[in-house]
């Protein structure tokens, strides 16, 4: 079968097909958008995610444009002449929304509802295709958390020094208590200080850094002289780490609930054997919690 991912990160865009081809062998995994489109847009992500800022009740009536564009892209792919058997829209459950995954899903559902209730009947016709062939899943809080399950993957990403996690919380509740990381200041990055370009400010300087796996990864791969303060590259080391990820090690992590929801969904569609780990519980994106009025396969 053919599965297409519609991710919101460059690492996922590069690495997911390889990673899931190993996880579910015998099936074809693709990504949207095309490589040509991504290449032509420079430093833009394949598509923007919509969870970077806190979502409010107002977003239920007016979903963020990024969510709308994700829905439009998904509908375009599924209504084309040779659609994939399954399309997985995959966004991060970023820290700004980590306490409200249900609301994130509600907002995305609202974006889908708006699309399929458009006065244009051609958009209305996408309702059935979306409800049967598209799923929406979350990576909590972001894909870099997965790397911490597998020291080999971290090494591929460029990490050479020891790291510290609060081990009993699980990677979807990623927490580090590395004292040097938590105490880091701008002075640890003279390369950035020279330019102070806001968009390249090291993520490990944020107040929520202890919960930020990518921030910690960037710290662990820091290069004080580089303008971005790191030698980590999402589309290189990050993508290669994801492709090489040890799935058994990842599933062995406690309470990987959102990952489990994704794998269960894929296994069901692909008719592949899958035994959920004992530590997981159903979450808002789990097939088992699918509402009767679902607008996508799982939400």
């Amino acid at each position, binding site marked *: 079968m053919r599965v297409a991912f519609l991710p919101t990160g460059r690492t996922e865009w590069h690495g997911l097909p390889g990673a899931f081809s190993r996880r579910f062998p015998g099936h074809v995994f693709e990504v949207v*958008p095309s490589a040509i489109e991504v290449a032509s847009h420079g430093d833009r992500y394949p598509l923007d995610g919509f969870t970077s800022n806190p979502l409010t009740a107002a977003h239920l009536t007016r979903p963020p444009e990024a969510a709308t564009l994700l829905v439009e892209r998904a*509908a*375009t792919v599924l*209504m084309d002449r040779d659609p994939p058997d399954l399309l997985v829209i995959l966004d991060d459950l970023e820290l700004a929304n980590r306490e409200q995954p249900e609301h994130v899903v509600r907002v995305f559902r609202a974006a889908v509802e708006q699309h399929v209730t458009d006065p244009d009947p051609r*958009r209305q*016709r996408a309702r059935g295709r979306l409800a049967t062939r598209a799923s929406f899943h979350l990576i909590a809080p972001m894909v870099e958390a997965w790397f911490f399950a597998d020291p080999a993957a971290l090494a591929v990403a460029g990490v050479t020094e020891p790291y510290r996690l609060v081990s009993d919380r699980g990677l979807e509740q990623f927490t580090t208590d590395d004292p040097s990381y938590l105490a880091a200041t701008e002075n640890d990055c003279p390369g950035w200080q020279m330019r102070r370009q806001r968009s390249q400010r090291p993520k490990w300087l944020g107040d929520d850094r202890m919960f930020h796996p990518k921030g910690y990864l960037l710290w662990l791969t820091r290069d004080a002289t580089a303008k971005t303060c790191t030698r980590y590259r999402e589309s290189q080391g990050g993508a290669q780490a994801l492709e090489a990820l040890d799935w058994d090690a990842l599933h062995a992590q406690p309470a990987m609930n959102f990952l489990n929801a994704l794998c269960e969904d894929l296994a069901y569609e692909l008719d592949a054997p899958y035994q959920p780990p004992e530590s997981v519980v159903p979450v808002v994106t789990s097939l088992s919690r699918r509402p009767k009025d679902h607008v996508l396969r799982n939400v």
Partner: protein
Amino acid sequence: MGVAAAGGGDGADRGVEGEAGAAGPPGASTVVASRGVDFELRIENFRVLQKARWAPAGVCLLAGANGSGKTTMLDALLFLRVLFERGHEAAFMNVGGRFFRSTATPESEPVVFELRVQDVTWRLRFPMGGNGLLDSFGEEIEGPGASHRVGMFEGWWMLGGEKVRIDDVRCYARVLWDRGDAPWMKPLVDFVTSVSVYKSYHLNRVQRAERGEPRQRFLHSSGANLWAVLANWQSAPQRSAHRYEWVMSRIREAFPDLIASIEFVDGSPEIYPPGAGRHEDALPAERAADGLLTGLLHLTAMAGLPPGALVAFDELENQLHPYAIRSLMRAIRERAEEHDLTVVLTTHSPIVMNEFRHDLDRVYVLDRAESHGAFDMPTRLIDLKSEDALAQARLGNLYDQLEFARPSGLPRA
């Protein structure tokens, strides 16, 4: 629409740069072209267009990457009009005679144009080498019960039983039409003389408010006679069928903060912004915003068209704010509907493309990568991608995402 009206017998030359248009054949009457002119243009080996066949109708969009042949397609239409009206030399000059033939085809293959309007077909074959015409070219006209085939530069033609010396630059179709004994050619003549192509306005000439000849009724392809046309229409509202009022009402909608009225003082325009009550508040043309002038040019071009005409705008969006683009698009559609016009727009603008969300069947793509060698260019977008898929997102976004009309050098997804 008769030839005299279409060609601008009063000295104007709508949508073509150069001299006056065609004179009507003896006894030709002014007849409105039939609703929705049924025509098809076929091209072989003309510049980048090796094989093209196109029959647009209504307001159409022609999309393609740079160098895909959008402007060449418009030039083909222009070439046929000028050839008919002013002869082959002017026609070659008008489209730039060099690089006429597709460099991808051998010299043995001629450049071919074929225009069918209803049941009349006009076919031209130009055997071209690197240095120009290799030999005499052929011209064919076929209509109900009639078929003519001649070679150009042969010194004489046979018209019926009469031997006619070729003593001017007119093409055979024009000679035949001017004799007045081939009324069956009328659909072809009406159509070919209705073609207007606006590729790039000479804004500096518009800003200088050059004094044009009086009695200008239609906009030149350069736009340089804009003010003369508007002044003429303003002074003769009955004769000009309220064209001036239509232009002014639509330009106010497109640029609500920039223009309320235009007054002509000794032929020179003075542009009054909204709320301007004094003469000192008026702006001369040279101080007007480029976008405002461009909008006036587009609207004046549209208002000057006779019913049933074909007009093409190459990259209509240049200089225009998105609001103005959308407003002008509404006006163009309105005018096209009311006057049975065929409008061809070429564009790279996502904003213009988005305006075709409900007219996907009128979006054509020049994409060599999608071409299969036959006469399948331009291709209807809905023949390339599912209409339902295209409707899920804004057309401009899909173009931005390289879903169609991508540069031909890029690998497939």
